[in-house]
């Protein structure tokens, strides 16, 4: 909880590599990247598909562990924590927005938004109120009882953003958040993300292959073949 009152979370990747083992072949996705992301920064990671930018995002969000190197949050090494400790840290400090929304099927919008609070042990009434508030703020207040299958792509992504923000994370990681949306939904989803970042001053990392999308960020970093291409 102590991260809540901070404006954002600083992240540092220190000489990280990630090598996938596919059918006996070693496929390096990240070949050695050192990167510091400051508190409250809005950073865009751009690159073509297969460049390793998504892997970099997942490493930053503790969904995955680097093969070598280290990940630090606020100068505390976090990649070596146990799966359980990393889960708790993700729950408290990290919000994810995915390209394909990743809402839980056969579950209503509000239940999806509540979920991070559920794993935090927040009582039901408080959970419901907070989730409702977040759904309202993304303009989905009238859809809280809808199942994800009854929502359009843009609407699903709004619900997903509400879910990512509900626990007031210090770090918001968005992996091609507009990749599956038509241009109008894409613009409004992007606006929503930037507005939230401005309001809470959390750290935002945005992965995209679209250079235009990247312009909303204050800093852009190119990734190519698992290495940084400083610009």
């Amino acid at each position, binding site marked *: 909880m102590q991260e809540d009152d901070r404006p954002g979370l600083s992240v540092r990747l220190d000489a990280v590599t990630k090598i996938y083992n596919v059918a006996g072949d070693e496929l390096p996705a990240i070949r050695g990247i050192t990167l510091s992301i400051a508190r409250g920064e809005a950073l865009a990671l751009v690159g073509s598909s297969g460049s390793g930018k998504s892997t970099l995002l997942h490493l930053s969000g503790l969904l995955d562990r680097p093969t070598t190197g280290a990940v630090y949050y606020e100068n505390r090494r976090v990649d070596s924590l146990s799966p359980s400790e990393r889960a708790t840290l993700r729950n408290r400090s990290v919000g994810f927005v995915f390209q394909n929304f990743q*809402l839980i099927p056969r579950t209503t919008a509000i239940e999806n938004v509540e979920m991070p609070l559920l794993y935090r042990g927040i009582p039901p009434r408080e959970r419901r109120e907070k989730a409702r508030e977040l759904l309202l703020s993304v303009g989905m207040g009238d859809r809280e009882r809808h199942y994800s299958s009854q929502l359009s792509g843009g609407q699903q992504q709004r619900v997903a953003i509400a879910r990512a923000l509900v626990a007031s994370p210090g770090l918001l990681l968005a992996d091609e958040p507009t990749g599956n949306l038509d241009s109008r939904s894409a613009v409004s989803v992007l606006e929503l993300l930037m507005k939230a970042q401005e309001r809470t001053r959390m750290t935002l990392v945005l992965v995209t292959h679209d250079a235009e999308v990247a312009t909303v960020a204050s800093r852009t970093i190119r990734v190519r073949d698992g290495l940084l291409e400083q610009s």
Partner: protein
Amino acid sequence: MFLVSLGLKALLRNPYRSILTSLGIVIGVLSVIVLVSIGLGAKALVLQSIQNLGPNLLVVIPGSVTDSGAQVGGGTDTTLTVEDAQAIRHDCPDVWNASGALRTAAQVQSAHANWSTVILGAEPNYLPVRDWHLARGGFFGNEEEASAARVAVLGHLVASRLFGLEDPLGKFIQINHSPFRIIGILSSKGQSPMGMNQDDMVVIPLSTLQSQIMGVTYVGVILAAAQSPDRVDDARREIRDLLTLRHHIPAGGRPDFDIQALSDIAKTANRLSLILTLLLALIASISLIVGGIGILNIMLVSVRERTREIGIRMAIGARPIDILIQFLTESAALSFFGGIAGGILGILSILALRSFLGWPAPIPWEGTLLTVTGATILGVLFGLYPAWRASRLDPMEALRYE
């Protein structure tokens, strides 16, 4: 707590699958309960027929004849006498009453019918010793015994075979061509635990049987009733000491008689029906285990189907233990509710068994509780592996799963 409700919600989303999955447990619990009840019913029947003979009863039989060193079966010797029975009656404080008895087979004739049956010679106190009653008429007393009178008391079956609907009282039957006057009819007693019909018998004074029909002086058996069921062992010891003395058996020598208590037979019968019940329960448990494997199978499928959901939950902060509990709840609930349903159906089946077949099957409340608990534990055990697999998924791979 919310993890438990998550598990339950998942089951409600797929009601048909949930019901079909728990059906194995339902059938397993049902069959365990019903078979245990049937086993207990069998036990009750056996004990009831032993109760019929009198739980206080001790049976003294003569030892075996040693014929040129070879032992012939027990009860063949002729060492017991009426005087032994009399001594047991008077000198054993824990014996309430005793009667010598001797039996033979004979042809019995009435005016119109002919029946081959058992002739039992007994002393006047035979009925109270056996806790038996007359349906009609009277029994012979000391006077008839002393004078070896030709009077007879008919067993229920014999009375109807020889006289049909007629009243046999006061009429005569022929045993070995001698006429016997009928003075009473015994109430029906049914089968003995050894499978003999106790109603197929004619009772006459022991002295009459000994002197006029068989020409012997011994008795075949002495029946002694202890004062109460808990004094059967004391009574047995007193009879042994008394007969050892009377028959001049040297200390450490082999007695020429044997004393059996019906409570011993009851114990054996009890143990046998317990084994039967356990065996039935064991067989039924196999179906319970098959039901558990059904749950294991469905849970494995469910974990695979919901891999992406698991990935999402992990991404937003579910710890491995949270995932484990969620899935374990599902399998525990499947087996618990299946067990409850099986328990209810089992009790209903037992009630049906009782009212339609008249089988004295008791409702095994404790067994039901135990079986339902066991089924739930089984569900948790079989759910452990799929739940463990779910909790060990890699969040990244789970999110990418299609």
